């Protein structure tokens, strides 16, 4: 469904991604794990078109999407819930969700999806007329995911959905992610909490300083000694 | 690497010595010709030595950028015109006259700048070819350049400074503080504020005005003038209802005019110039309902220009009274009338009031230069300018007094009629 071929991305002079190739199939949850600064977020940003690659190709459903501006990539069916949530603090929860559906024009469908988001995150319904900035961290994360879903994406990019959340919320969020996936959305998950990520993902890639060093099924990665030592904290 | 350093240092030292002593040769006089004079003749040795130089220079220093540009254009045009009429020569064509139009404004500031005026004055002072300095435009600028040029003994003829203190006692210490050499070097062809302000108040009395509201533009010229007006008005028994300084940059004066309207004046006097929003003032005065029939408007020569009527609009400006330190160009007879026609033909537009002053300043300068042909030095020219007596210029026949002020006390009163300035009467 999505394919990255030898992607090189730069920030100024910094060579952030040094030839990344990966693929995600329809209906999968794929996770990227790696240390801070390994290039996980950059990979997502590259796919979303926020930081276009300098070299290499990104293929989405066999269409080359590198070079397409970010706002048009959303229309193709890829949406992202960015790291740090990045909700719009001065818009209400409902307006935030509406922004998620910015590229769409079917009123009916938007209403349905809004309903779906509220069902997924009942807390948001309670707060629908509250401003985004007043939500707590967990609620903001829910809002960010809900907002990303509003574009009715075929592929959802999640960047650190568990960051800074209480353990009880982390469990919930991951449950919901699985739930979304089961409803048919392909998911690319970037996660610091490698244990959790690998427990719900089908496959995973390990990134190290802008390069993919390991690629395997989630189960195999969990058993990999190097992964255990570096990312799972198991001695 | 030490080798490199010492090499460099040695070379720099060598170079600096070269620069320092390389040019000792040509003249021993420290200041010779430089700026401005090089067009044809760069070699004129120190101009104040005896003999007749090939060319001399007249400079003017006026704000050529920013909002005073319109005024100074007319002055420069008139000066150029006068010089052209003399074929750019003096002493029966023997000596060429160069003219340099200096700008005492800066782009960034958009108005005259003290340092720039000082620079102009210093440059003029150092260039011994410069024998006459026309300007500056603003009285404030004059306070800076007079002392500088006074020490250089270079004569100044201002077409537009009216601050009293430049030539006569006004503020403590004035005018002597401006003349460190003790000798007067500054003249002006325009009557000073004390004459014009008082004449305005007298005229107001003649017009039957009983109460007056005074405004000024909070600048040297306007404020000085309006203060004199106020004093004279009180002496004449008029009621002064109030005196405000306006913000010259405001977009409208409706509130101010509401306030004035409530005091019911017969006349509003504005001390200021067109550029400081005189037009807007009149416009708003009319728009809050003070009609020409009820309330008169009077201003000084700072608004005696086409631009004032244009800015105020013909309807609003209608009936405004304007005082002017001389006879208006159109009413000039003889020489004046001739000049008026020439100017219109040459530049395709009405000459403004200041054009006449600029022309007169250039005329006085040429006159004095022509009288100094035997010895073209600053000193002679200075003396001859001060000795201008019964000069028949476009402004009338007049002389300089010992202060450098014009003896022209005959002022004229104008009124805007049918969108044009109409001469009404002479005033004193």
């Amino acid at each position, binding site marked *: 469904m999505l394919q990255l071929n030898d992607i090189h991305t730069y*920030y*100024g*002079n910094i060579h*952030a991604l040094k030839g990344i190739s990966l693929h995600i199939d329809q209906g999968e949850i794929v996770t990227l794990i790696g240390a801070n*600064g390994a290039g996980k977020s950059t990979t997502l940003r590259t796919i979303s078109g926020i*930081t276009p690659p300098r070299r290499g190709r990104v293929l989405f459903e066999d269409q080359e999407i590198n070079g397409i501006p970010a706002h048009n990539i959303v229309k193709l069916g890829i949406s992202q819930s960015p790291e740090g949530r990045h909700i719009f603090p001065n818009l209400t929860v409902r307006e935030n969700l509406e922004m998620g559906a910015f590229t769409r024009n079917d009123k009916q469908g938007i209403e349905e999806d809004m309903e779906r988001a509220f069902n997924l995150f009942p807390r948001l319904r309670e707060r629908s007329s509250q401003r985004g900035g007043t939500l707590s961290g967990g609620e903001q994360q829910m809002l960010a995911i809900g907002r990303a879903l509003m574009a009715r994406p075929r592929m959802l990019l999640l960047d650190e959905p568990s960051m800074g959340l209480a353990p009880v919320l982390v469990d919930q969020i991951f449950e919901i992610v699985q739930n979304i996936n089961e409803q048919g959305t392909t998911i690319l998950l970037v996660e610091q909490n490698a244990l959790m990520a690998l427990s719900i993902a089908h496959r995973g890639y390990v990134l190290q300083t802008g390069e993919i060093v390991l690629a395997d099924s989630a189960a195999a990665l969990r058993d990999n000694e190097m992964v255990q030592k570096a990312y799972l904290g198991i001695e | 690497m030490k080798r*490199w350093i010492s090499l*460099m240092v040695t070379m*720099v030292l060598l*170079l*600096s010595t*070269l*620069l*320092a*002593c390389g040019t000792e*040769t*040509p003249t021993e006089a420290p200041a010779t010709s430089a*700026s401005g004079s*090089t*067009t*044809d003749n*760069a*070699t004129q040795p120190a101009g104040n030595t005896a003999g007749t130089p090939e060319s001399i220079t007249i400079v003017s220093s006026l704000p050529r*950028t920013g909002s005073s*540009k319109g005024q100074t254009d007319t002055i420069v045009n008139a000066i*150029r015109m006068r010089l*052209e009429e003399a074929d750019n020569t003096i002493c029966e064509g023997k000596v060429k006259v160069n003219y340099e139009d200096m*700008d005492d404004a*800066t*782009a*960034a500031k*958009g108005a005259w700048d*003290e*340092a*720039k005026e*000082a*620079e102009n*004055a*210093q*440059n003029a*002072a*150092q260039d011994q070819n410069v024998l006459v300095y026309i300007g500056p435009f603003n009285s*404030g600028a004059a*306070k*800076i350049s007079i*002392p500088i040029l006074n*020490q*250089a003994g270079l004569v100044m003829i201002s077409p537009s400074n009216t601050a009293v203190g430049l030539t006569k006692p006004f503020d*403590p*210490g004035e005018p002597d*503080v401006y003349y460190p050499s003790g000798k007067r070097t500054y003249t002006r062809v325009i009557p000073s504020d004390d004459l014009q302000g008082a004449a305005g108040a007298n005229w107001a009395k003649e017009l039957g005005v009983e109460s007056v*509201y005074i405004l000024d533009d*909070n600048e040297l010229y306007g404020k*000085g003038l309006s*203060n004199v007006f*106020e004093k004279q008005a009180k002496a004449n028994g008029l009621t002064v209802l*109030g005196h*405000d300084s306006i913000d010259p940059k405001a977009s409208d004066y409706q509130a101010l005019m509401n*306030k004035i309207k409530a*005091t019911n004046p017969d006349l509003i006097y504005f001390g200021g110039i067109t550029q400081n929003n005189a037009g807007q003032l009149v416009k708003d005065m009319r728009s809050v309902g003070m009609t020409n029939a009820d309330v008169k408007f009077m201003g000084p020569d700072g608004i005696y220009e086409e631009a004032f009527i244009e800015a105020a609009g013909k309807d609003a400006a209608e009936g405004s009274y304007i005082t002017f330190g001389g006879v208006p160009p159109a009413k000039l007879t003889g020489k004046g009338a001739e000049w008026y026609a020439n100017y219109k033909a040459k530049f395709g537009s009405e000459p403004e009031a200041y054009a006449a002053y600029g022309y007169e300043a250039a005329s006085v300068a040429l006159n004095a230069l022509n009288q100094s042909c035997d010895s073209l030095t600053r000193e002679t020219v200075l003396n001859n300018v001060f000795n201008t007596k019964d000069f028949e210029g476009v402004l009338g026949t007049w002389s300089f007094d010992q202060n450098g002020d014009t003896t022209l006390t005959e002022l004229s009163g104008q009124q805007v009629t049918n969108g044009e300035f109409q001469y009404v009467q002479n005033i004193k």
Partner: protein
Amino acid sequence: MPKSLKVGIWTFIGSFLFLMFYGFQSVLVAAIGALLIAIFGVLLALPLPDVVKSGLLTGIIGLVFVIAYAVERPAIALLGAMITGVSAALMASYRQHKTDLRAGAIQGALAGAVGGALTAIALFLVWLYIVPAAGVTNIAYAKLLSETIPLGASLGSDVAIIGWLSALTLLISMLLGALMGMARTVEGVRGNLLSYAILGLVVLLIPILDRQTELQLLNAFIPVFVFILLALGLNIVVGYAGLLDLGYAAFFAIGAYTTGMLSSPLHDTHWNFWLVIWIAAAVAACAGVILGAPTLPLRGDYLAIVTLGFGEIVPILFRNLGGGGPNGSLTLKLFGGQLGTADIAGFTVMDQVNLTGGVAGINPIDPPKLPGIVFGPQNQVPWFYLLVAIMMLTLFLINRLRGSRQGRAWTALREDELAADAMGINTVRTKLLAFAMGATFSGFAGAFYGAYVSAIFPTSFDFSVSIIVLCMVILGGLGNMAGVIVGGLLIMGADRLILPQTSNLIRKVVQHQQNTLDLPTYRDITQWRLLLFGMVLVLMMLVRPEGLLPNARRRAELHPDEDTAEQENATLFDAERDPQLAGH
């Protein structure tokens, strides 16, 4: 499309339109002119080595300088060479820091050579085209050359002198460039001191050059330097402490007025300048604290607007506290004062006391007195050296402040106010100190300016002054003293030297060529000055948004150096979170 081509096309279109509109009626002439300008645009945009680029950039300025002045004062090329060489080397070393003495010298010399070459080319252009166009005869020009150029008299012919002059230009530029390049190789404080020493050497040579070659530019340089002094002070507030101040002219005014009130006939006090300058600085510093105090709780642009407000209020106060108020006699009207009079009690009293000279300003102001040296309007040299001394002192003090505990606190404040607060830095005191120190140096500037011009007026301290000084600081490079100086030289040089002189020159040429007096007003170059000035500002920002000589740290924000590549990994982490970088 490559960037350079794009830049070239835009420059061509822009300058072509300008030239056409300006009055090069012949399409061909305008096109050729535009092409020449566009070539420079392309050169600057090409990925040339930094050395060449620095040289080009400064060289173009030297070129313009020489073209503007050389008809009247050909020796300007020497001055141009001095400045071009030093600044080209400085710029080159900012982008590519060398540590080896020899490499530094070569780099500096190369940059200087490029700059000097352009300056020298300008000489030939002037001699070949502009001199005849302005109606100066060859003989007259040769005479001028032989009189004003060192050793010129012994060479005789104008070709020889021009050749000698351009060789000298190139040589000086290279030499000073090399010297500067070498100084830049020394690390740390000593390196900075060395750079300043070389700058100082150039500055000290200016009066000698000026006198020997009859440039008569000292009096034009002095206001430029005063503004640089102001910019150095503002740099403390904006560059170090990160507080945007749009009303800096207020402190300049306060310094000048203090001087004016203490040493002029206005209050008949004639205190010694050497005392007054310190008082002026102290008063300005106090004003900095007083005006700074209410702004403390404000963030970012709110602070800016409040300072702007003060910048407006202070000159109004000076203007209105001039006594000689509209109403003649001292009356304290309480209730029911006659309706319509402008005054109410408090203001009536104020009107009577002439504190500031009002609209008439204060003049004359006493010059400094030193035995054996006359500070007069005719002799610029003592003024110049006095100003340079003040500048040296300023640089010295600011340099000390910057590396100190206080300086660190400012930087911390700029970087992250919350964290600074949490580190025990008293933000109130630190901000006030920044305002006070910034004001101090403008107090010096004001005192000098007042004494130098010998007159001050409320109009001298408009908003435009604040804006220009701010432009100098930002254009040069926030937080970097050398950058601020270069920025100041450029902006004030454009405003005070190049633009007016270019106008003169063009007027002269047009007059000679067309022999008419009445150009249509819109074709008078004077009328285009603001446009050109604004364009310079915009273009400079577009070319180097971080300023000409950015602070090393700020530079790193935009152009991460190669030598940090090993820490790429970590930087990347940061970059991902940095919205500035993320946009690339």
